[in-house]
């Protein structure tokens, strides 16, 4: 029966994929409206190019996650599994409705269902304190964002004429959708929730649910008509902060999934930088900058969903095959888990923006957009140049994250007995990873296909102008394609030459050179933290490390303890502010005493006040 549920979800995802690709390639959308008895509102849903663009990664990662979950959850009890599938299907459905929503109540209800179902999914596997803490943090953060989104949905014109100032709408939308997207400083819930959730759910959340926040901001920009420059500047600032803070904190993590979660913050920063470039370009009338920025951001939505989904599935495979996700206990599992190793290698290189794979196409477009935006006159150039510097640091740090993730976990020698006995995972878990890895390579080598689909969306964002600017974006993607294919060809040629030399001259296998040391152990290898230590010395102020203990004073010391906690600068500051505010909050709790008759009194008083105000 579980197989039936999974195939049902997969076929619905396939259907959704076909529908959204049809909308993107034909450029025709549709809207369906009806009056609705609830609150006197309309019930309107529709699918246009922008919604279809976000529906494609939803279908792909959702379908692959469903197949993966079949294998990943095989040890759980029947009740947990069925609940998991129910919430998973509900999450997918609610995200579809969020994308299709064209009226206020539909949107708010779907968003709330999305938050609640993902909360239940986050808590699906967890039994301990960490899991409960992560779930609570996620729920609270989600509802704080929801509060901003209620205000947003009241103010935004829903496709009609704008009534309120669009700047206010943009700000409120930035806060509300920013919480969901995981922008710094509103990202505090992201590392906790994505680490604790089951891997296919983390892949779904990191790949697709975060992008719902990006979708909301894009929808605001589309409905705003005229874009102002300071919106672009605020997007750029948020993007640069997210990129640098996310990537630096990813380096300091020992848990594979926590590293990937912070890396998602980093990639959302890249998307925001691209959007900022696009908005600044449109506000200044530089259509090439706008085209490059929007194209880069949109493509990165797809590419990040694919490679981050792949990496989270890989982290889950490591957990399944080895039993631990701690980088300090892994190592050398590439020799025993070959399929997982190849797939995670492709995902990690895509994260590092390697030219044959898909990350490079979108990040390259954002960088070029920033460079071209630097031609603006006077102080207007500082925003795009900030994008260039932000992308540089983010790119270099993300490359280091990839090296840490893949190099420490899969290469070298095993650092623990569990890693030495790693087992490859089953077909149900391998097949989705292979499909996503193949998509990474395909969208990297032939980005023309994805660009074709993105044309209507970019045209919508650029206000239907700038044909020659899109021409330059086309030429750049074709050039990246030429680079990718020639690189593969050149690599094959060099490989053939090298193999001929080795066949002719022989090969020998020896232990790794150890400078004459007779008893090398696997613990002598560099660990994750030692690999990033030089970089953390330079950028370490973004990561708050609290260490306690570790002092050994006597000649024959007794037991000593060393404790090290890593949290990012924003979370740490937020915790300190919250603990100081606790005293204030305690006063408000006097009103929450649990006595029903007093609550009835509150309702009566509120009604009296409303009647008096209405009747004046």
């Amino acid at each position, binding site marked *: 029966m579980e197989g039936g549920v999974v195939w049902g979800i997969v076929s619905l995802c396939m259907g959704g994929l076909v529908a959204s690709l049809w909308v993107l390639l034909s450029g025709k959308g549709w809207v369906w409206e009806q009056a609705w008895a609830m609150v006197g509102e309309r019930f309107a849903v529709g699918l246009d190019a922008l919604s279809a663009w976000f529906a494609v990664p939803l279908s792909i990662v959702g379908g692959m996650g469903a197949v993966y979950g079949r294998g990943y959850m095989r040890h759980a009890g029947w009740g947990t599994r069925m609940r998991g599938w129910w919430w998973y299907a509900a999450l997918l459905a609610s995200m579809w409705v969020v994308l299709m929503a064209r009226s206020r109540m539909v949107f708010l209800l779907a968003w709330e269902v999305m938050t609640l179902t993902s909360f239940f999914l986050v808590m699906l596997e967890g039994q301990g304190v960490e899991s409960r803490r992560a779930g609570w943090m996620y729920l609270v953060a989600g509802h704080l964002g929801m509060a901003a989104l209620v205000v947003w949905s009241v103010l935004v014109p829903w496709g009609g004429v704008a009534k309120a100032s669009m700047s206010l709408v943009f700000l409120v939308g930035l806060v509300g959708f920013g919480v969901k997207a995981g922008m710094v400083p509103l990202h505090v819930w992201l590392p906790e929730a994505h680490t604790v959730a089951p891997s296919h759910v983390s892949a779904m959340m990191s790949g697709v649910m975060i992008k719902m926040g990006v979708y909301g901001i894009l929808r605001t920009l589309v409905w705003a008509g005229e874009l102002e420059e300071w919106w672009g500047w605020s997007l750029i600032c948020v993007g640069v902060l997210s990129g640098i803070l996310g990537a630096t904190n990813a380096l300091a993590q020992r848990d594979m999934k926590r590293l990937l979660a912070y890396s998602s913050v980093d990639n959302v920063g890249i998307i925001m930088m691209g959007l900022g470039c696009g908005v600044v370009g449109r506000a200044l009338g530089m259509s090439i900058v706008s085209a490059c920025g929007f194209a880069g951001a949109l493509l990165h939505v797809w590419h990040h969903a694919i490679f981050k989904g792949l990496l989270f599935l890989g982290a889950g495979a490591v957990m399944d095959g080895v039993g631990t996700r701690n980088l300090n206990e892994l190592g050398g599992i590439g020799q025993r888990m070959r399929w997982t190793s190849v797939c995670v290698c492709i995902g990690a290189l895509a994260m590092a923006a390697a030219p044959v794979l898909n990350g490079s196409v979108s990040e390259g477009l954002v960088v070029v957009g920033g460079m071209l935006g630097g031609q603006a*006159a006077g102080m207007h150039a500082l925003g795009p140049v900030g994008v260039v510097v932000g992308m540089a640091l983010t790119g270099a740090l993300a490359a280091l994250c990839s090296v840490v993730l893949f190099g420490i976990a899969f290469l070298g020698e095993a650092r623990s007995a569990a890693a030495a006995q790693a087992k490859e995972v089953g077909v149900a878990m391998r097949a989705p990873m292979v499909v996503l890895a193949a998509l990474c390579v395909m969208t990297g080598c032939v980005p023309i296909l994805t660009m074709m689909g993105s044309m209507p969306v970019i045209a919508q964002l650029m206000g239907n102008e700038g044909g020659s600017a899109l021409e330059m974006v086309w030429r750049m993607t074709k050039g990246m394609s030429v680079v990718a294919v020639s690189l593969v060809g050149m690599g094959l040629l060099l490989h053939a030459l090298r193999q001929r030399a080795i066949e002719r001259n022989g090969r020998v296998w020896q232990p790794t050179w150890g400078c004459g040391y007779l008893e090398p152990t696997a613990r002598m290898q560099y660990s994750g933290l030692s690999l990033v230590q030089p970089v953390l010395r330079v950028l370490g102020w973004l990561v708050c490390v609290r260490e306690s203990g570790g002092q050994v004073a006597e000649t024959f010391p007794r037991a000593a303890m060393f404790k090290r906690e890593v949290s990012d600068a924003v979370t740490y500051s937020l915790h300190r502010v919250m603990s100081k505010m606790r005293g204030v909050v305690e006063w408000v709790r006097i009103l929450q005493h649990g006595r029903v008759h007093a609550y009835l009194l509150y309702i009566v008083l509120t009604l009296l006040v409303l009647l008096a105000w209405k009747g004046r």
Partner: protein
Amino acid sequence: MKMTEWLQSIVGLVLAPLMVGVIQRVKAWMGGRKGQPLLQCYYELWKLAQKGGVYSRASTWILRLGTVAVAGVLMMATLMVPVGGTRGVISFPGDVAAFVLLLGLARVLTVLGGLDTGSSFEGMGASREMLLGVLSEPVILLTFAVLVRWTAHASLAEVCEATRGAAWSSEWPVAVLLFAAVWVLLLMEAGRVPVDDPATHLELTMIHEVIVLDHSGPELALMQYAHALKMWVWSVICVNMVVPGLGAWWKDLVCGVGGVFGVAMGVGVIESSMARWRLNKLPHLGAGGLALVLLAFLIDMWRG
């Protein structure tokens, strides 16, 4: 013309190891010795290609993929770089980003190949190499941003053609500052003194040499060739603003190649005059390069 594009790329692919020979010869001359033959790097590459491979038991397909891919990536970068202002074989608008991403891929694959052996020496080299990446990447991208702003083109070939010989024109402040910044980049990316000493025998002082400690035979030949290509690529970009355009493409090519060997001689003089810096001073070098580029950007912004 297509033939000139292929010719200048093949010149790069063939002459890059000669730069290593020139640097060694200059160092020997400054030390009062006779030194190696100029073509020594070619002899070494040939000797290594005739040997078999000795592989570490801990290494996997990553090391073998890494060497081939790094050499391939750097050959592609050489095909993109314009010597003496003539276009490279591969050139398209926005290829400055592709160029930087190619160099980043080379660094990641070199480091992964090193980590594959499970040795703490390679791990040390890996951590230092990634630090160099973090320090140099902002300088690289900001240099290209200033060049793109200055010339209003987004392709490496067009940018270099527009700024050829700019150090002798009225825009010399920006050109000289960028020349100095790319010189710092050349030292950082190619691993010369004061960033990394290629002549040291002490593993704890190496950065690039120690990552390829367990590479041998054809693998080592590919890595050494790739390293020489990296130096070529950055020297071409560095010298582009100093070498003036002379009209005919072959005169420009000869001048460009001559400029590159001039850079090699300069690197040799620097290597003979100073010692490698302590590793905790490297962020200062990176910040210095960034300051030079920021100054160039401000001057360009002030000029309007």
